[in-house]
């Protein structure tokens, strides 16, 4: 049998010898030395491993094992079970979409990573509003706002959608059937789908009234155009052929009708013979006023009469009204210029009064600008509000004729001016239904609160101008149990239709050429525009009377939208709250801006604490019967005589953890929906207000920081006279800093040399770059208290300087002592010229920060960048001290988990963390950080080029700030690519480096600002 077979190991085994037996018994052939070893004391003592050694080894291995056990906590990431086809981890996807929120429309690209939208980028292929403002850039954060309403609420309790739809529909029906009114209060609706559905609702419910309110009303303007062009819409501005803009209180670069003109404005303002000239008459200092070549102060109440004066001066058929002497001479000069620029000029009026708009339009008509710079065929459809309707609705509400009020994304309780009396009578309605993104002040008094989706979760079709149709598509599934307005309408109408289908259907109804999918891909399609209707005759004498009647003496107050919050939609957005106002440089606040002389008159002041934090006094502001208490005062130059200003949208009590108790609510004292009010009385109140103002010194102290010249000098003089290079006296004669440097030059010829050009002529200070940088680079939000202590973390800031009456020349002429001179230089002029200067890490090639870091945590790259190795940084802050530009930012606290920052830093909750850019590290406490010129984008572009086996193309990618800059002030690229735009800009005669004489040789350079002064 096979398995009984035996093999012998040898003959000994076969014969079963004793040796073999004993071997089989012992496991080891030879005796092991272990017994001797352990047993023999002598041998033990002679061993090289002593007891001490043993203990040492034991101690070491225990310590080593202990140390090895101290590993960082493991964070699990779960891979896709089935990978979605279009998602490659680490590779972003971009989707085109359209935004209309808080009165802002934009066509954008949404960057998503692993299915999360993380960044909004401009859609630059689009003609109308393809850029992004600070608010559009910041709007992505609101998607991940933990304070969003997550479930439908009925009577303060969580309910379900079928139930609330049923209940709300019943409430609407009940009101309608009992003969009472149903009020639909919405923001402006530019969705043809929503308009169609609201129309269907109105057909179903005959007592339904649709009221529009979105914070800033242009009803007066619309009233005029209804008469003049027969449509309730505003004309669009067209600066392509403009050579002169005269604006009266119209902050068209900032907060105006919603049409963004900054890119064409900047393009037309390139210094040269045909440089666009801009004159601004305004009551408060806006960013448009800051950009203007000549800026004149004009009281808001005198705006209409000034326009009437100009109208008459240019040959308009009204008698010349009286205006004060200085304004008259300014207007006379402007009239001459306007005449010379007939057909290429544009006169704009701000405010919400019909007369001003009528005269502005009249002037444009007289000059032949209509159809050229002012387009009445292609209309702006962002506004359709009607103040008369609102006041009628208020009357009905007050008399108990309203059964149900439906608010759609309108926080009426907070935002509707108290003087209208709407909210005071809200309790007279039987049912209040609010569609809202959060449990705001209105939701608190509403019977039902229906959560709205964010636009990044929505389908929609938008029609912002006559020739533009935009599509919105969701970039992420709904985060919460929310519905969008159109969905709710469909549910109310009982239509069982998917939103996508409804949008597609509406799209096809518009009869556009492009297929739906193409439109979706591009984001926007154009639509043919009907020719402009003939202009109707307008009765100017009536307007002239109104204009003269509007003039008022006494204090007046201007209500404006702040650059950060707009109409207040973003009141709980920490990025935007933390963005310093371009003009005042105050963040986390609104405040009553008063001129220095008015402040003196009122006995109020701003003062600095010993740590550099700014405080201000409080005042009580009374307009008519309404009073606003504890309004902080901020002293601000550039205001018209006896004019104060206050931003709307602040003072929320139920905005969310970041936005509550920020500022005061201007709606309390607003004069209806007018943009200003007269007959204001202001009284000093007790207490001090703590401001988060990050700029203490407002003037350049006679230094060459923003280099500025006039167009005349630019055109006629050698650039050496207006772009002066500091020369040092040496034994070799006069040399510049770069010629006298002791540094060994880096090799800047091999490979890339990244440079950025910042055109101070194009920068309008809008702050889009600041927020874009926040989003791209995971810049922490630090909150008011830290901002107040000048611990802002912004990698990119926009410095704002005012001109001062005291200059080196004046001091020399008048023989003023240095100490007095410097003290006076600190004081801004009464009507200062304003300059903006974006400052980020200058990426010095002779970097002062690099030499002083003891651990070489900040080092120079071969590509002209200054790197920051966070892991190596020990936080001595020596680099920040030695930085002449003060652009380095230190992590004073652990912003991502210190409980002091829970309310403000979105990165502290799981939801807010979703906005973080996975390509950029979140920096630890104690580490220095700063602008990297978006190193992650550079690397990505280089890798892409490498994969394709080509060079990186100019303009293929850019930094977040440059991408966000609508006016094209920031241009990034490789100067070793001689064909690149940045290489060309480096050779420009306007080019200079900031603090050139320090010899830092930065990779960032600036272009001299040129003012086209009269």
């Amino acid at each position: 049998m096979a398995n009984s077979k035996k093999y012998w190991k040898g003959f000994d085994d076969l014969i079963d010898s004793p040796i073999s037996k004993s071997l089989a018994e012992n496991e080891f052939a030879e005796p092991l030395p272990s017994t001797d070893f352990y047993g023999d004391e002598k041998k033990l003592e002679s061993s090289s491993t002593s007891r001490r050694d043993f203990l040492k080894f034991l101690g070491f291995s225990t310590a080593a094992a202990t140390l090895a056990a101290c590993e960082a906590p493991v964070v699990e990431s779960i891979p896709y079970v089935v990978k979605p086809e279009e998602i490659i981890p680490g590779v972003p996807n971009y989707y085109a979409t359209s935004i209309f929120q808080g009165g802002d429309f934009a066509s954008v690209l949404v960057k998503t990573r692993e299915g999360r939208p993380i960044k909004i980028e401009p859609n630059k292929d689009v003609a109308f509003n393809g850029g992004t403002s600070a608010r559009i850039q910041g709007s992505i954060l609101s998607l991940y706002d933990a304070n969003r309403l997550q479930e439908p609420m009925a009577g303060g309790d969580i309910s379900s959608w079928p139930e609330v739809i049923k209940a709300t529909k019943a409430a609407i029906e009940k009101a309608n059937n009992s003969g009472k009114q149903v009020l639909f209060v919405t923001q402006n609706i530019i969705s043809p789908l929503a308009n169609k559905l609201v129309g269907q609702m109105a057909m179903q419910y005959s007592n339904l009234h649709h009221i529009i309110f979105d914070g800033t009303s242009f009803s007066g303007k619309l009233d005029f155009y209804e008469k003049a062009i027969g449509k309730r819409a505003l004309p669009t501005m067209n600066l392509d052929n403009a050579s002169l803009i005269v604006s009266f209180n119209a902050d068209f670069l900032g907060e105006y009708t919603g049409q963004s003109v900054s890119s064409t404005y900047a393009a037309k303002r390139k210094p040269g013979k045909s440089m666009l000239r801009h004159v601004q008459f305004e009551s408060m200092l806006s960013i448009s006023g800051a950009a203007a070549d000549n800026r004149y102060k004009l009281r808001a109440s005198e705006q209409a009469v000034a326009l009437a004066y100009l109208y008459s001066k240019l040959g308009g058929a009204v008698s010349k009204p009286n205006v004060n002497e200085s304004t008259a001479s300014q207007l006379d000069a402007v009239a001459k210029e306007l005449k010379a620029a007939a057909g290429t000029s544009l006169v704009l009026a701000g405010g919400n009064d019909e007369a001003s708009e009528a005269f502005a339009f009249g002037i444009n008509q007289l000059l032949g600008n209509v159809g050229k710079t002012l387009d009445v065929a292609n209309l702006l459809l962002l506004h359709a509000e009607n103040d008369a309707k609102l006041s009628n609705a208020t009357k009905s509400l007050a008399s108990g004729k309203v059964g149900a009020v439906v608010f759609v994304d309108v926080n009426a309780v907070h935002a509707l001016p108290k003087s209208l009396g709407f909210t005071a009578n809200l309790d007279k309605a039987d049912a209040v239904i609010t569609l809202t993104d959060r449990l705001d002040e209105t939701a608190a008094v509403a019977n039902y609160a229906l959560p709205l989706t964010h636009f990044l979760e929505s389908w929609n079709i938008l029609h912002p101008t006559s020739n533009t149709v935009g599509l919105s598509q969701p970039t992420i599934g709904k985060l919460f149990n929310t519905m969008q307005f159109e969905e709710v309408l469909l549910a109310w109408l009982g239509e069982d239709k998917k939103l996508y289908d409804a949008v597609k259907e509406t799209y096809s109804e518009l009869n556009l050429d492009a297929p739906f999918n193409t439109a979706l891909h591009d984001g926007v399609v154009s639509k043919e525009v009907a020719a402009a209707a003939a202009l109707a005759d307008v009765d100017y004498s009536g307007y002239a009377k109104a204009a003269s009647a509007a003039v008022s003496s006494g204090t007046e107050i201007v209500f404006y939208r702040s650059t950060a919050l707009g109409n207040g939609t973003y009141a709980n957005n920490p990025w935007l709250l933390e963005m310093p106002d371009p003009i005042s440089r105050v963040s986390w606040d609104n405040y009553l801006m008063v001129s220095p002389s008015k402040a003196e008159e009122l006995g109020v002041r701003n003062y600095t604490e010993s740590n550099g934090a700014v405080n201000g006094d409080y005042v009580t502001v009374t307009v008519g019967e309404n009073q606003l208490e504890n309004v902080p005062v901020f002293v601000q130059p550039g205001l018209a005589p006896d004019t104060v200003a206050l931003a709307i949208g602040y003072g929320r009590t139920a905005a969310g953890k970041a936005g509550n108790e920020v500022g005061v609510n201007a709606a309390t004292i607003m004069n209806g929906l007018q943009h200003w009010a007269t007959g204001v009385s202001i009284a000093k109140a007790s207490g001090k207000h703590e401001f988060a103002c990050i700029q203490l010194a407002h003037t350049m102290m006679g230094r060459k920081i923003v280099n500025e010249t006039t167009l005349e000098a630019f055109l006629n003089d050698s650039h050496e006279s207006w772009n002066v290079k500091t020369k040092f006296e040496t034994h070799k004669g006069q040399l510049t800093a770069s010629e006298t440097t002791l540094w060994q030059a880096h090799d800047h010829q091999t490979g890339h040399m990244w440079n950025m050009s910042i055109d101070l002529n194009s920068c309008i200070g809008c702050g889009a770059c600041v927020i874009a940088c926040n989003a791209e680079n995971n810049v922490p939000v630090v909150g008011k208290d830290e901002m107040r202590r000048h611990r802002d973390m912004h990698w990119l800031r926009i410095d704002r300087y005012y001109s001062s009456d005291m200059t080196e020349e004046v001091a020399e002429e008048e023989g003023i002592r240095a100490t007095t001179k410097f003290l006076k230089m600190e004081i801004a002029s009464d009507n200062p010229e304003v300059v903006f200067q974006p400052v980020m890490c200058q990426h010095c090639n002779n970097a002062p920060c690099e030499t002083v870091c003891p651990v070489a945590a900040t080092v120079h790259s071969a590509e002209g960048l200054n790197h920051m190795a966070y892991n190596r940084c020990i936080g001595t802050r020596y680099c920040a001290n030695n930085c002449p530009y003060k652009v380095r930012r230190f992590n004073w606290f652990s912003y991502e988990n210190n409980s002091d920052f829970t309310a403000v830093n979105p990165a502290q909750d799981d939801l807010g963390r979703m906005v973080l850019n996975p390509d950029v590290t979140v920096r630890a406490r104690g580490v220095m950080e700063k602008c990297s010129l978006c190193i992650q984008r550079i690397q990505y572009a280089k890798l892409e080029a490498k994969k394709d086996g080509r060079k990186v193309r100019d303009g293929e990618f850019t930094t977040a700030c440059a991408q966000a800059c609508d006016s094209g002030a920031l241009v990034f690229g490789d100067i070793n690519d001689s064909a690149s735009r940045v290489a060309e800009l480096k050779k420009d005669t306007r080019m200079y480096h900031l603090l050139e004489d320090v010899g830092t040789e930065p990779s960032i350079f600036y272009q001299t600002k040129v003012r086209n002064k009269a």
Partner: protein
Amino acid sequence: MHYESPVREPLILGDKSYHDITVDVAKPIETTAPKSWWIAISISLVMFLWGVGCILYTIGVGIGTWGLNKTVGWAWDITNFVWWVGIGHAGTLISAVLLLFRQKWRMSINRSAEAMTIFAVIQAALFPGIHMGRIWLAYFVFPIPNTFGSLWVNFNSPLLWDVFAISTYFSVSVVFWYVGLIPDFAMLRDRAVKPVVKHIYSILSFGWGGKAKHWQRFEEVSLILAGLATPLVLSVHTIVSMDFATSVIPGWHTTIFPPYFVAGAIFSGFAMVQTLLIIMRKMFKMEDYITIQHIEMMNIIIMITGSIVGIAYITELFIAWYSGVEYEQYAFLNRATGPYWWAYWSMMTCNVFSPQFMWFKKLRTNLVFTFIISIVVNIGMWFERFVIIVTSLHRDYLPSSWSMFSPTFVDIGIFIGTIGFFFVLFLLYARSFPVIAQAELKTILKSSGENYKKLREKGHGHH
């Protein structure tokens, strides 16, 4: 045999014998502590613990607990650091430089001056550590082999030079001090009655036997260490000053800093020695060893270095004007007339004007007056560093970033804590170490003791 000239004042007063010196020096250690000592150490301990609390709070929460901001990245931390390093200059100067110059009057004060040096340097060394955002990575500043690849420290950084300068200075000072202590520990060992104490002192005295060979080696080592320590006196503060001098910040970027800082350091160091010795000689009744003559000599040094510092201040102003650099000119105008004018003028008053009183013999031999001035000088020197650091940073190149600084309770707490720590160390030292280098002092008893001088005068008439 070397005799001292009879015209020189005796350095040891009273009719002292060798044994008297032994007894006097050993007394504070062998007797129970006076009540004043207990009060002093209690206060110091409370201050110290408060400081420890503030340091732990800083490390636990972040540097944000201090009053710094994006513009002013250093303030009290580095002010205190430079201040304490400066104070730590007198000891080595007295023991090393004066040894090389054979200044025998140093012998009764060098021990305590050196102790003060070491304790001050300990305080100073704290600050570069705790001012770091990530102190747990402080070892990154040492050029040690590491697993980070070929990652090396940045030898261009003055902060790194500081690491070397301070650690070298500290180690040389400790060794020098300790070598001097050996024969004195042996003396204490020989006198000790309690076995434990005897054992401790015998370990500390390294088996000193007082043999001729021991003395010869002792002298040699002292001389070599003095030679090593002397350049360090100059180098340490030179390097500290380079933290500022090599930067680009107006008000820091100043070539005068090295000599100016060294003079200032010696100035403040001597002032601190005065403060401590005036208390100590009173507390331990050592008036015969630390005489008015010592006080006067040190006052003269204070006066001279104070004047050097004053000249440096004026030179800075002149150079700022002469340079024609607008930033530099503004920086100095701002110092004197800007928001921190009070700091500048406190510095000027304390450092430049107050030492000028020492021109009067009556004032410089007045103990109370000296004591007051010694404290005033150190206040002034603290302000000097504050002025240099904060007023230069708070308004540098770009007005948009100008800011202010105000300390928080943590800033203040840490500073108070280091003062407490310093005095805790000094008070413990005074009760356990021979506060006067008695072995050395005995070598001059016969040449410079009051009694012997008188005897010699009588016996020889003139010599």
